[in-house]
């Protein structure tokens, strides 16, 4: 399952070969650490085309079975949500872990993404969280029950959204139960 260890530059080169145009921008960030023995490690930050998301993830899985750091998203209140996926390749190699951060814009008119739980069953937790916090639908996700929010959470309310679907109006009532807020008490 594990692939041969590559450097950040080689990983980027392989992804560019396989994906070509869909990488809109890329950057290799180097961080130097240590006090007496200075050494550095690298991270890859990429902006990609949203339609190529699934293909990009599949290419990453071809290189090495990754560790999923996080999935998150940013809503600035506009028409799109910026999705951010953090993967780590080659964990277990001293100084060798290469984190890859994928970013892409998802239009609010069509908040649908393919699931990655078929490649990594452990990603279910992350996808369920994003689903309830941002309202992004994952195609192929089997368990769609709420993760952190209560089962009677109102429909169409997403805590991380900064538009009319956000929870600004609910925040002042956190001491009340969902039912009390609904009844207008």
């Amino acid at each position, binding site marked *: *399952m594990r692939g041969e260890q590559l450097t950040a530059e080689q990983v980027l080169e392989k992804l560019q070969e396989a994906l070509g145009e869909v990488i809109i921008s890329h950057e290799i960030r180097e*961080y130097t*650490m*240590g*006090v*007496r*023995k*200075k*050494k550095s*490690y690298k*991270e890859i930050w990429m902006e990609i085309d949203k339609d190529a998301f699934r293909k990009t993830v599949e290419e990453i899985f071809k290189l090495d*079975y990754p*560790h*999923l*750091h*996080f999935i*998150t998203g*940013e809503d600035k209140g506009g028409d799109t949500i910026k999705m*951010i996926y*953090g993967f*780590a390749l*080659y*964990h*277990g*190699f*001293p*100084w*060798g*872990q290469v*984190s890859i*951060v994928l970013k892409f814009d998802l239009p609010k008119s069509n908040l649908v993404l393919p699931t990655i739980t078929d490649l*990594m*069953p*452990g*990603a*279910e*937790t992350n996808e369920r969280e994003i689903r309830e916090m941002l309202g992004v639908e994952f195609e192929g996700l089997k368990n769609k029950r*709420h*993760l*952190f*929010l*209560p089962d009677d959470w109102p429909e169409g309310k997403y*805590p*991380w959204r900064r538009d009319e679907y956000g*929870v600004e109006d609910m925040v002042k009532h956190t001491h009340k139960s969902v039912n009390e807020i609904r009844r207008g008490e």
Partner: protein
Amino acid sequence: MGKTQYYIPVGPIHPALKEPIRVEVEVEGEKIVKVDVKRGFAHRGIEYMGMKRNAIQSLYLAERICGICSISHPYAFVLGSEKALGIEAPPRAQYIRPIIAELERIHSHILWLGVIAHEMGFDSLLFWTWKGREKVLDLLELLTGNRINYSVFMIGGVRRDIKESQIKAIKDTIDFYRTFTEEMKNVFLSDPIYKARSRGVAQLSKEMALKLNVCGPVARAAGLRMDIRQDNPYDAYADIGVKAIVPQDIVGEAKGDAYDITLVRLYEIEQSLDIIEFCVENMPEGKIMAIPNYVVLLSRIKKKAGESIGMHEAPRGEVVHYLKYDGTRDGPAVWKVVAPSYNNINTWGSLLLGAEVADIPIVVAYIDPCLCCNDRIAVVKNRDGRVIDYSLIHKKAIEKTMRVKRELGVRE
């Protein structure tokens, strides 16, 4: 046909669980055939709050995510913020931080060893390990002023220096734990009953560990050499060259069960002692904060845009913070926290399937789900409101034992 399957709900409030979480299982006889885990009973929306506060306020908020590894979240937060804002902590601070973090790992691992002993029914072992744990909590109190929630980390350094007079206390504690860990190894690893109760229980294969995205001691017990202190080192860890502790290096083979995870945690206590010793002996001189003035720090944060991921190896696994500063406010615009238990709870579903009801506490406890311990002291008062001291309580306890013995007719 008669009913053969029974439904057992455990939690959210349950004596076997120290934190609110709900495990719903369906059993056929003793075998578990269906599992569902419900989380979120302690969700407080801390990320949401953090995105509305400034970075220093969010740092203290991060400290309150977890009651046990209360330095791990601030550690990931300051590392991420420093990466995003281009601030470097002074060398001395980079050596003080791992000392605090490793002391925390020692107390957290001993806490787990006590909890797992309790779940297996060895309560005397629980009290013995926790008695040993007090020393490291006392040392943390000496160094930081608090047993828990130390509040010593700051973006670009630490808030408290380690004085020469405190170094002796650190060295004494290291000596104490060298002996104590040796004793714990004897008790846990050589005991036939402990072995019988933990070998093969909660067994996770290497492949499953990868697929379920687990981290920390759970992944290492399964044979995966992952440890952020080794993979992407930071601060003094970069100078030390930390190696992930995996069972195959100690006993030749990784089985990934509750016994192996005990092994990993016990050896990690020794590794932490080595790290603390290195840091104390090689600590550079100098200042402890890059930007000592908080007003200056906040205005610097407000002007600078940047994003990064901050990672720290907490006692339970990797803590990852994604941070984005947008250059318009003095706090994070986006803050995403992933704690180790977030990933490690993934194992419950697969490990409980096919297991027996009696194994539920061990499977649940084996990943060390993050519990809270904020109680400092229990003050017992008599009817007049006067505090009863320890010697009187001890005397009363002996009296009660004698009375019970008399009533039951026990003869020595």
